[in-house]
């Protein structure tokens, strides 16, 4: 073999001294900040490209890993979006909350009308409607199915009612208005029926908690999935890691491509989850619109808001990164050159 002469080297340097800032510690390599930065960016770019190449080399395996993660992500996110929609629906019902003012039985039609006008003129009242004793009885006869029996009564037992639609819908304001209305002359009872709204709020609160718990569980499952996937990648690259460590690769250098891989899995899963949710909600929406139409409502499910979608993506990337970090941290020490 005719060995060619190498350029004269720098004298052998002190061994084992860790450089303070930059990775290079070979004499003659005293790069300025710009070239250090370029090299650092190049190293990250190389890790990213390498991770991407390895993922695309096994497209089916990578896709299914992303899909499993996407399911884990889209379940709580989908439930949260549904709850948001129910809250929106509940909010619109709540806006329709009314205060029923039952007048004294002997209050006359004129008194009822006058009271209605007085209430309608109030600033915090959107509308006031008068239901006379006769109208009330008629409605009751129709709705109760006791029409004939009610006709046998010696006199109409129902009072006249003023239905008040308030402008504000929060519970405190409504209660204050109810008390004020109750003090008006000829008012026997002022009834504010918000029980069903409170029940709905309680159910939604329970739903929120359920979603939170489910999210925690699925985040843990997701970390396990990504951790296990990265562990397999580490096992497949055991020799490479050992060689890298042998020629001076730091733990962070070894860790870097796996972190990118975790983040890429997260990104893929996030995008898939977004797609699943967008199509899933769209698919449900047809049925919801039909059902709402039957109740005379124009309610429709809102899709995945862009902000929520971006949060989902960011969260997925972060989870992938954290899962990979945990997996590498756990297995890195086991991989020492032999």
């Amino acid at each position, binding site marked *: 073999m005719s060995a060619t002469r190498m350029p004269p080297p720098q004298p*052998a*340097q002190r061994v084992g001294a*860790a450089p303070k800032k930059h990775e290079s510690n*070979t004499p003659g390599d005293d790069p300025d900040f710009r070239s250090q930065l370029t090299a650092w960016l190049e190293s990250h770019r190389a890790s990213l490209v390498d991770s991407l190449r390895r993922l695309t080399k096994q497209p089916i395996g990578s896709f299914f890993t992303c899909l499993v993660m996407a399911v884990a992500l889209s379940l709580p996110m989908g439930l949260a979006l549904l709850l948001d929609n129910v809250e929106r629906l509940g909010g619109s019902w709540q806006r329709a909350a009314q205060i029923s003012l039952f007048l004294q039985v002997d209050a006359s039609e004129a008194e009822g009308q006058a009271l209605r006008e007085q209430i309608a003129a109030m600033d915090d009242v959107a509308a006031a409607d008068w239901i006379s004793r006769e109208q009330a009885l008629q409605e009751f006869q129709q709705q109760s199915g006791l029409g004939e029996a009610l006709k046998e009564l010696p006199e109409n037992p129902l009072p006249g009612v003023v239905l008040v639609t308030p402008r504000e819908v929060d519970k405190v304001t409504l209660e204050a208005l109810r008390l004020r209305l109750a003090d008006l002359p000829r008012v026997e009872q002022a009834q504010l029926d918000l029980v069903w709204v409170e029940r709905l709020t309680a159910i939604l609160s329970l739903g929120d908690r359920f979603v939170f718990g489910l999210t925690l569980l699925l985040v843990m499952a997701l970390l396990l999935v990504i951790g296990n996937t990265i562990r397999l990648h580490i096992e497949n690259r055991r020799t490479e890691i050992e*060689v890298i460590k*042998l020629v001076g690769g*730091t733990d962070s250098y070894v860790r870097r491509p796996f972190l990118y891989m975790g983040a890429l899995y997260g990104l893929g899963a996030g995008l898939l989850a977004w797609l699943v949710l967008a199509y899933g909600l769209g698919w449900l929406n047809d049925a919801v619109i039909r059902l709402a139409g039957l109740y005379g409502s124009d309610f429709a499910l809102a899709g995945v808001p862009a902000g929520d979608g971006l949060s989902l993506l960011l969260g997925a990337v972060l989870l992938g990164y954290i899962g990979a970090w945990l997996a590498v941290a756990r297995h890195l020490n086991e991989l020492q050159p032999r």
Partner: protein
Amino acid sequence: MIKFEQVGKRYPNGHVGLHELSFRVRRGEFLFVTGHSGAGKSTLLRLLLAMERPTTGKLLLAGQDLGQITNAQIPYLRRQIGVVFQNHQLLFDRSVFDNVALPLQILGLSKPEISKRVGAALERVSLADKAEQFPGELSTGQQQRVGIARAIVHRPALLLADEPTGNLDPRLAAEIMGVFEDINRLGTSVLIASHDLALIARMRHRMLTLQRGRLIGDGEAV
């Protein structure tokens, strides 16, 4: 450069790899460590690479106590050592160029600098025309030379080689040794563990002889 002071290595199972070994290696020196299988040659190299730590005594490499070195310091220590293995330890899914470039990538050198240095290292081992090939496409001797190129590409202060000619025919072994001598002439200390006494004798360098973990000879090979 290297100072062994009563260095001993005892494994958890009770096996003693090295017994109170004491010797010094000067900067720029070329020496062989020889002995039968199990004599402690590999243990000695593993201690120098901080793959293991001495259980007794003091091992100094350029003034740094390898018994006290922290785990975080080990990569920086290894960056200044080149190491050649009998089984090459090459990455078969990377090209020859990428295998040789690995230590420079770890050092964070720029692409043009890496390209220049890898070219020079491959030329030194006469493999400049194989840069784009993969190790699996090369002969054993060529693979060994890739391993050497990777070990010298970052211009280490110390080059360690564990049975570097173990799988090579005598002619190729002599060529490889020639490469090591060239590298040594350029200022790098070279320490080769080998049991090929005939080859060692031809080269007339200092030779440490180990037997069952003890140093039983230290002098020029004849």
